[in-house]
């Protein structure tokens, strides 16, 4: 048994090295000097730890601006998703209104619509609204979604109704019940939804790519993708920019590994 465990450990360890190798290569390359990477005698470690790649990404290239755009857009989308999803989820879970089941069925079915199938009319709509090159254009389609409403509904349904009844008897309105009783008890679900939404917004690529023309409005992912087109790529600078584009999510992941994995396992229903 002990020997078997050792073999398993060794196999997994080898696998893990391969899985982490691109990350190591990214981080180590980001600390190299600009011309240091162009050597046939490849080395893992930079000869000296140089921050010049980061310096160029933040000064010669507008990655600071891109980063701020990404942070702002992701925060707006996450805050709005939590609000709209909690409200809609509560309506579906607890309130009786005509057409509830029908609307919920439409929400459920819409989860299988791939974003690429709706992107052209969405683009035309945003352009007609005059929102090309704006934060509103970047965020509007993602301020609510069927998945968040579905997830919150499932969570609310799993909660005992007796607490809410007590609130109603005490004279609270439904909104007060939601804000004062239900939401404080829903922190795990809200946290999962927030993680999932923030990650999706931060990593989203196709929508910001098509909706933005002005350089100053680009997000990190779009800015990063355009670097690739350079004829003489500045790899240390691009690796530094990649580190900055992945770091917030990696840190969040390391801090909240369990929630991340749980929320993604739950969101297996979405893809």
């Amino acid at each position, binding site marked *: 048994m002990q020997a078997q*465990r050792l073999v398993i450990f060794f196999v997994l360890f080898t696998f893990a090295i391969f*899985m982490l190798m691109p990350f190591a290569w990214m981080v180590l390359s980001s600390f190299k000097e600009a011309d240091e990477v162009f050597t046939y005698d490849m080395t893992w470690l930079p000869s000296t730890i140089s921050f010049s790649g980061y310096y160029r990404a933040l000064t010669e290239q507008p990655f600071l601006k891109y980063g701020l755009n990404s942070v702002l857009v992701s925060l707006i989308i996450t805050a709005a998703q939590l609000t*709209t999803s909690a409200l809609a989820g509560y309506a579906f879970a607890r309130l009786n*209104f005509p057409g509830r089941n029908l609307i919920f069925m439409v929400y459920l079915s819409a989860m299988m619509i791939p974003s690429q*199938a709706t992107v*052209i009319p969405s683009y035309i709509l945003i352009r007609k609204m005059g929102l090309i090159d704006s934060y509103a254009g970047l965020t509007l389609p993602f301020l609510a979604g069927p998945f968040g409403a579905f997830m919150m509904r499932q969570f609310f349904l799993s909660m005992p109704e007796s607490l809410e009844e007590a609130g109603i008897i005490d004279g609270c309105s*439904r909104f007060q019940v939601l804000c004062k009783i239900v939401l404080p008890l829903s922190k795990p679900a809200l946290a999962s939804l927030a993680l999932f939404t923030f*990650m999706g917004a931060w990593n989203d690529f196709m929508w910001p790519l098509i909706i933005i023309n002005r350089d100053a409005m680009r997000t990190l992912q779009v800015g990063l993708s355009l670097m690739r087109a350079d004829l003489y790529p500045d790899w240390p600078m691009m690796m530094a920019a990649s580190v900055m584009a*992945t770091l917030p999510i990696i840190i969040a*992941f390391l801090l909240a590994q369990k929630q991340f994995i749980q929320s993604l396992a739950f969101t297996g229903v979405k893809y």
Partner: protein
Amino acid sequence: MHSRWKRLGNEQTRTALLALIPSFVIFCAFTIYPIFCSLYLSFFNASLLSSTRTYVGFNNYINLLQNPTFQKAVKNTVHYTIGVVPIGIALSLCIAVLLNNKLRFRDFFRAAFFAPVVTSMVAVSIVWTWMLEPNYGLVNSLLAKLGIAGPGWLTDPAWAMTSVILLSIWKNLGFNMVIFLAGLQNIPAEVNESADLDGVTSFQRLRYITIPMMRGPIGFATIVSMIKSMQVFGQIYVMTGGGPANSTMVVVYYLYQQAFEFYRSGYASAVAWVLFVAILVLTLVQNRLIKSQT
């Protein structure tokens, strides 16, 4: 009493409407309206940049199916899916089975395998492009140390798709692993214990107990991976731009090009609907699978 109930019912409807409206407006404007609008557009010759359009019936669909680049894109998407899904599923199942033991550093391993899932596709595609750089990149440098002259991974039509497939397997391994780990937790301990008592070998256990009992999660992960594969875009955009010589041209990249580089919104909408229907079919198969288990 009766009027009070009625009032309460009305209040609930009012509250529900207020609560639902923000979500419902966005949902209708950016999911329901666009999906029907793109069906409508697919029957027109339309430009993304102007509002004039002419009705062409099924011409967009006919042209599409006859277009050699689209045919190539479909072929490549199938090639990509076949490259990514079976190997990706098999590898992540192996890792999940190995990780499902009492091990030291189990959390570390799980985090290492899962990390690529949460990082941005654009960033990892840039990193892989640099790793696969033919002269100074990591992969060819390591191969050179073994005396092997590595190919121009992303510049050689024979290797470009393989490179994209490798990246995608690496990126999605952790996602399937999590699904499988959850599935393995559901296999009752007694089953494995009695197998141990019967002196079953590890391989027999995998073949006759684990895989049959994991049929549900495996089916689910396979369909989800297939749907994701049909939507591949970011890594293609960053790593190859559909090239070289259309060797990595896939359906969504083709859609993107037609719509947002050539502004053929009617034609591209037809591509969008072909993709949508294909994904719909897979999703219905998936729902069948889930229902047949429960």
